[in-house]
């Protein structure tokens, strides 16, 4: 029997009793054992818990209660999302011993939908980084080439899906942290509209930008996860009601009834995103994707997003400002790492934070404290907010001309481990195509669209606020007509099969 790599297909097999949730979970752990040593995607694996859970889920399936499109399918959760009773380290020494007594709302919803958690995945410390190299728990390797990074900060989640350790995983995206690792690892992901998914239980990095989203083998799997986790949560005041039509579209995608038609879809191509600094191989793959979409009936429209050049500085000012505040609670008093007895209170703070945080977190906390301090607030933070507003307007005018925007996700394919870690500015510039989407609060998807240097390239489709539907439809049309997303790294042969 062949186990598909699609979560939706796996759930269909469970529902039709071709395989049990217990068998599938057992398979998932054999894959984890086979590839984890090479990939290091996980921080905590939960074999006994997952098998216990699989037995419970299977009894519900046997009782005919498999009501969700992912019922009984094993999955993973990024380690900055809280699961009751399981360590939530955030990839940091600071929270190395922290176990939350509550579930993130997204996880509550997935539990109800029959999810089986197998592991918590690696990430850049507090989701700050683009390579999963800043994790206190080691570097996650790219399944396509283990000498390269998996991207970040949701590098563990993307690598786990790409290597077949899991069917799908949750990531979080503050400036590209779902999309860039998806691009680097050749998998699909959605960064939902700000407010579409509850953030309750997501350990905050930059609250006005953070969103939880799915990473999967194809966009349909991601859509299935999104349909479960999206919607208003009374515990998160910034969340909103589920946007209409997502469930119906998903049902027809799963049933494969209607052919996906994107004829007449206006795909915006922003010249500003294809200029200097973009790797030729990446550019060629994304331009080729544009041709494919055109071939499927879409029309290509030239659009302008000139303010993209301000996106990276605005993003780092705003994100770091919020981070400096969000991370202040790690003071050695209540939970997590504490430096232990000290002479006085200030020393406790200094020692705990000095020893508990890694270099990148310290850099961002200091940067953020600086831009908020009196005398600098207007020059930096306020300017950042103004730039954010202008970038939002830029997108609004662009969407008068097109329905989705096609762009690269990252300027390059996955780079070598250690190559950029000592050059933070270069690292930050790698976020150029993704951060503006967070600043504008828009949804975006990333799907594989080719290869460069034998490494996968992901294209980014950005949409109007709460119009995930159009993005998913476009991406699914693309995947129905191409095979980039079914290509797996050779390591995958040892994964789920």
């Amino acid at each position, binding site marked *: 029997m062949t186990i598909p790599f699609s979560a939706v297909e796996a759930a269909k097999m469970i529902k039709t009793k071709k395989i049990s949730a217990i068998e599938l979970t057992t398979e998932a752990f054999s894959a984890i054992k086979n590839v984890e040593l090479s990939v290091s995607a996980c921080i905590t694996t939960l074999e006994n818990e997952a098998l216990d859970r699989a037995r419970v889920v299977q009894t519900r399936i046997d009782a005919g209660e498999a009501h969700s499109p992912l019922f009984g399918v094993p999955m993973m959760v990024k380690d900055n999302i809280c699961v009751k009773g399981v360590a939530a380290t955030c990839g940091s020494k600071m929270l190395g011993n922290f176990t*939350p007594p*509550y579930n993130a709302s997204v996880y509550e919803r997935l539990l109800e939908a029959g999810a089986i958690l197998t592991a918590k995945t690696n990430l850049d410390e507090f989701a700050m980084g683009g390579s999963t190299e800043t994790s206190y728990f080691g570097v996650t390797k790219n399944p396509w080439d283990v000498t390269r990074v998996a991207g970040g900060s949701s590098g563990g989640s993307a690598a786990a899906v790409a290597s077949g350790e899991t069917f799908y995983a949750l990531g979080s995206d503050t400036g590209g942290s779902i999309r860039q690792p998806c691009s680097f690892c050749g998998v699909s992901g959605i960064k939902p509209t700000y407010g579409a998914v509850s953030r*309750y239980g997501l350990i905050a990095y930059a609250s006005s930008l953070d969103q939880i989203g799915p990473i999967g083998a194809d966009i349909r799997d991601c859509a299935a996860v999104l349909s479960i986790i999206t919607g208003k949560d009374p515990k998160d005041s910034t969340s909103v009601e589920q946007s209409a039509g997502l469930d119906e579209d998903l049902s027809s995608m799963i049933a494969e009834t209607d052919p996906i038609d994107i004829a007449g879809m206006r795909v915006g191509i922003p010249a500003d995103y294809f200029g200097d600094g973009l790797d030729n191989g990446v550019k060629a793959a994304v331009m080729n994707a544009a041709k494919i979409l055109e071939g499927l009936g879409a029309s290509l429209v030239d659009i302008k997003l000139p303010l993209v050049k301000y996106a990276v500085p605005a993003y780092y000012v705003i994100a770091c400002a*919020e981070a400096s*505040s969000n991370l202040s609670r790690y003071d050695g008093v209540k939970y997590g790492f504490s430096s232990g007895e000290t002479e006085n209170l200030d020393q406790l703070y200094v020692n705990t934070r000095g020893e508990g945080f890694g270099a990148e977190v310290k850099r961002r906390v200091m940067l953020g404290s600086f831009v908020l301090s009196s005398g600098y607030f207007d020059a930096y933070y306020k300017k950042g907010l103004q730039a954010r507003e202008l970038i939002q307007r830029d997108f609004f005018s662009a969407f008068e001309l097109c329905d989705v925007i096609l762009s690269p996700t990252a300027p390059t394919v996955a780079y070598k481990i250690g190559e950029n870690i000592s050059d933070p500015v270069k690292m930050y510039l790698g976020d150029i195509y993704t951060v503006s989407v967070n600043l504008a609060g828009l949804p975006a998807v990333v799907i594989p669209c080719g290869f460069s240097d034998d490494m996968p390239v992901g294209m980014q489709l950005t949409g109007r606020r709460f119009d995930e539907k159009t993005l998913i439809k476009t991406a699914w049309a693309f995947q129905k007509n191409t095979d980039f997303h079914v290509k797996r790294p050779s390591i995958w042969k040892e994964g789920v099969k």
Partner: protein
Amino acid sequence: MRYEMVAGLETHVELLTKSKIFCGCSTEFGGEPNTRVCPVCSGMPGTMPVLNRRAVECAILVGLALNCDITHRNKFDRKNYFYPDLPKAYQISQLYFPICRDGYLEIDSSDGVKRIGIHEIHMEEDAGKLIHDPWDDRTFVDFNRCGVPLLEIVTEPDFRSAEEVTAYLEKLREILLFLGVSDCKMQEGSMRADINISVRPIGSSELGTRTEMKNMNSFKAISRAVEYETRRQIEVIEAGGAIVQQTRRWDDNKDASFAMRSKENAQDYRYFPEPDLLPLHIDDEWISAAREAMPELAEEKRRRYMNDFGLSEYDARVLTSFREWALLFENIAELSGQPKEAANMIMVDIARLCSENSILPENLKISPDKISALIELITTQKINRTVGKTALEEIFYRDVDPVKYVEENELLAIGDRDELLAAVKTTLNECPKSVEDFKNGKQKAFGFLVGQIMRAFGGKADPKSVNALLKEELEKI
């Protein structure tokens, strides 16, 4: 040279909502440390605040009572600082768009009615408490108070004397109590005031350098602190010195204040908009609903008691000195239709019973229906006032039904004229010595005779009738 002091007040008031401002935990004072906490108010990672609408309603009520403009588009901001009693290391507060602005409160001052400007009122969350263990030289944190909703009421620098400060605080406290939004207990910290003081030569329009005084835990302490700080500043200036802008801590035991930190060491709170809460929109509908739900305040009550019930100003003041008394009074007055009786019963008898038993007005539990029934018994002369007092005590201590009580204990007044007359005559016959004394001008003898007659009825006769009959009979002798 002569000086005047200039002061402004920042008053923190804990709101009497059932639950905290951003989570569902109880706001009740006390409790074992860290038993009224949840992941949200203890600042656990990943948790988020959800605004308590009742706290907003309380703030609107206070704003309206203090004649403020209510802000339509409210925002919350983070005030960042490290301290162990602040688990998130930031306090959610309002810096840029406070909920109320530009109001005033009128106080009685030595120059007549004076208007104290209200600069703004903003909403925020309270912090926890540190408990120091002197035996072990360790400090513990109690998060129970974390997230209790607070209002900070900031005045303009309109005070010119300690008396004005006290008058303002008393008036403010009265308003907050009658609105039912706070219990305003300074000892429990549900009302706290910081004061900014400067002095300047009389006639000058420029403000002097100010100091901020903290840690006063009674109105008296505030008054003393204001006087002390005014004197201190004048002495510094007179001696040729300059006032240093600083925060000072009042020590009530030493009757003096001490410098805490100067302006140079002032904290930079790095305020920025709270991203976890959406802007709060308060529309006109919400404001007018609050206006309609606004309870009657003490001042209006006093006017009404005097105009409608014919009470004296003194009585009206006593009855409105506690919200619970005023409400009890109104209740009994309405049920019995006898406001003056109701007023007396509360001010004299119930007040005495409360004070004898150390019962605070807010803890007084007495049935207005039963008191009203008792008043009915007394005013229709079914029982005399002495029995009335006993019956009141029975209601107070044992919650008895007064009608049943007087019936079962055969305490109904004996008012039959023939019966009384017979008793008077018998007594006069039995006590010729007293009659003689009375005739010789000894007033005391009259009282003795009344006592004898009353005893014959077991105290249940109406003393008024007994007095009248006795007088008549004595005149006949």
